[in-house]
């Protein structure tokens, strides 16, 4: 069953054509990878999905309704969560507060309730803490750092906290922009294990951008390949690996002989 349908996406900044007629469908519960050389437009697709960029043409259909004209905060509330290529945590806050912030759209406390911190506001915060502790902090094994400011954490841990914050948004689709970039083998393995567990246990759909080909080929259900803003191939890992356009984009063209 399709949860996300993107039709004929066009995006340009002035004369620069970033995305050209990109269409794809993501099925519920799958890991869908977007790969391509640098500057192919991968992150721009995520920015369009999140509502940070506005496409000139084309539509984005999420869970049966068109979200093309919604603001980023509305899309987040509907269930689109995102982790960033360059870590975008709130550096002044602790790990716990960063994760709590992910739940923002699902909480109800208003300004007055917050000022008084009485009754519902208090109960809501306590329920939130309990839920985050049980469902996210335990799961991602970050109990030991929950009170630390994120700015002091190692890179791999910061990436994990970012994942935790995205999970706190209770997403239906998780958009991950290079989750293992810059990680060592062990950190990558940890992250892959978490991604697979999330997909399995939480029935989440994951759209992932990554340059680590071994990892992508291992965990993706389907892969889309972009080059210069155009979709050049789509299919399961075996199909994509043998696709002539993909080989051309990544390895260059063969000369006459051989």
């Amino acid at each position, binding site marked *: 069953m399709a949860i996300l349908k993107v039709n004929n996406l066009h995006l340009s900044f002035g004369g620069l054509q970033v995305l050209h007629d990109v269409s794809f469908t993501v099925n519920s519960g799958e890991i869908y990878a977007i790969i391509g050389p640098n500057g192919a437009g991968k992150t721009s697709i995520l920015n369009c999905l999140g509502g940070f960029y506005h496409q000139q043409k084309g539509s984005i259909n999420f869970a049966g309704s068109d979200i093309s004209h919604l603001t980023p905060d509305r899309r987040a509330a509907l269930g689109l969560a995102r982790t960033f290529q360059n870590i975008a945590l709130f550096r002044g806050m602790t790990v716990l507060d960063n994760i709590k912030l992910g739940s923002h759209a699902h909480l109800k406390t208003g300004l007055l309730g917050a000022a008084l911190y009485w009754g519902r506001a208090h109960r809501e915060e306590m329920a939130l803490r309990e839920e985050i502790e049980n469902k996210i902090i335990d799961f991602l094994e970050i109990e030991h750092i929950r009170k630390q400011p994120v700015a002091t954490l190692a890179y791999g841990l910061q990436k994990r906290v970012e994942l935790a914050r995205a999970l706190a*948004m209770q997403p239906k689709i998780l958009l991950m922009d290079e989750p293992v970039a810059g990680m060592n083998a062990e950190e990558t393995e940890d992250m892959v294990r978490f991604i697979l567990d999330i997909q399995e246990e939480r029935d989440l759909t994951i759209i992932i951008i990554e340059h680590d080909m071994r990892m992508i080929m291992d965990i993706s259900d389907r892969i889309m390949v972009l080059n210069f803003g155009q979709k050049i191939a789509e299919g399961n890992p075996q199909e994509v690996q043998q696709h002539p356009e993909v080989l051309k984009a990544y390895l260059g063209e063969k000369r006459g002989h051989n």
Partner: protein
Amino acid sequence: MRIGDFKESYAADEAVFSTSTSRFWLGMLFVLLAIFPFMAGEYLLYMANITGIAIVAALGLNIMTGAAGQISLGHAAFVGIGAYTSAILSNRFGLPFLLCLPLAGLAAAFFGVLVGAPSMRMKGLYLCITTLAAQVIFEFFFVHWESMTGGIRGLNIAAPSLFGFDIGSEFGFYWVTLVVVIIAATVSRNLFRTRVGRAFIAIRDRDISAELMGINLFRYKLYAFATSSFLAGIAGCLWVNHLKSITPEHFPLHESIRFLAMIIVGGLGNILGAIFGAIFMTLIPEVLQTILKFFEEIYPQAMSFLFPLQTVVFGFLIVIFLVFEPHGLAEMWVRVKSHFRLWPFKH
């Protein structure tokens, strides 16, 4: 000394004063604050009152500039709006102090939201200039709307009373200030235990990812403007009821900058910092003055030299604090506290 600090529930872990040691010292502080007015003379009570008023205003600015990262150069104008609102309401309509207090806050909050409206399209230094414009515009109104504000002569008000008690004296007003400061600090702290305060800090740290996390940036910026100017308005109401007169000269641009200096010296985004900063910026000039008076008795002829030196020393002290304590007085406090945590059994 703090030992055996184990939490058994998340509620206990989330409490603000989570250990019996900190609750003990908080209690001691309250006892001290309650004894103080019976020991102190008129002058010290006056100092306590203006410090308290500065704390309320600084707590307000701390929410907007310290936590939400929207720099304001117009905070004094909002204090002024609160002060004028309170004076006009009590002079023209005979409203009691207890009613004037929230109304002054609401009036300031209303204008705060108006001034904050451009934040939909602007941020950073550009928004900062908008607040500067607000400062100038409101000052203009204070001076020229003579039928309401009394122009440059300003307004005088009668000594306020509360529940039949006269609070016009320094002693009486001390209790009002104390209660308002405690409420303002509690409300500030509470904000940051919920999603509202977290959203403020998120906007300061990274506004784009805050929006992608589902925070409506415009709404929360307006919330920050509203709460910040509400507290400024409350401070203004206290101000006018304390001095019993106001003129436009009380709320100039350099007063706005003084509020900014308070929260920077104290530690941006930190409630304790705002309190320390307000105390520092209010008391240090007075302390320097006292030292000066001491010298005056010994060398009367040195005054012409020493008097300007007072400002220089004050400025120098601020610079020293910023160099050695860039995170403000609040950070220093944390270090002192952690030193005493295991005292005297430090290894």
